[in-house]
């Protein structure tokens, strides 16, 4: 079996960062447009 666990870990971290980063950006944008 090939040894490529690092690639998997990188992909999982990246997806987590992208999704939670976008969620955070939405949260901040909503807050800013509510209290400008």
């Amino acid at each position: 079996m090939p040894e490529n666990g690092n690639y998997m870990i990188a992909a999982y971290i990246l997806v987590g960062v992208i999704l939670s980063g976008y969620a955070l950006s939405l949260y901040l944008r909503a807050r800013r447009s509510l209290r400008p």
Partner: protein
Amino acid sequence: MRMLRVGRWITAIGLALLAGVYVRALAFTPIEQSQGLAQKIFYLHVPAAIWAETAMILVGLASIVYLFTKDPRLDRFAASSAEVGTVFCAIVLTTGPIWGKPIWGTWWTWDARLTFTLFLFLLYVGYLLLRSAIPDPAMRARYAAVLGICGMCEVPFIHLSVYMFPTLHPMPIVLQPGRPKLPWSMLSTWLLSLGVFTLLYVGFVVQRYAVSYFREQLEAAGEVGHA
């Protein structure tokens, strides 16, 4: 306001369940023999791809109805769906090469499916750029709708040309007629992940919709320039 709260809750549940998908995929799903651990990227890659494409179709459908009814809610939905689609498309475009490097031995190849995803991403970026370049809301909505409809109509063409080129990409193994080739232990993880991405799409779109709504209220009140 209530809408924003609902969107935040859906997103929060989605993110919590995403952690669940990680645990299930890493600890409770068997390792594929020929590809090793890298195969597990598939549980995130394919659901993101499905929603990246579906979001474009939804943008197009909302745009068609918008041109007939001129309902601003549809325009807000189209803008939200396009933005969320861009994020999912970015996931597909980054996880794809990370899987391709150990399995194909190269980060990027001009394979038909990779090229298709890149086109989709460029379509989304163009759509968002066009929106940001027009200050007048009514004109922005009409122009974006025209581009959204053209984008939706282009998707089948890119799909067709995908089948005219040789491909390295694995053929779809989940959504094929007849019995799925995937064992249940893997399929259930994949289905869970698809459900989580669906939740995240809905949660993101609802929040983004609320943000557009607040911004429009502010623009109408003349407190800020357009954003």
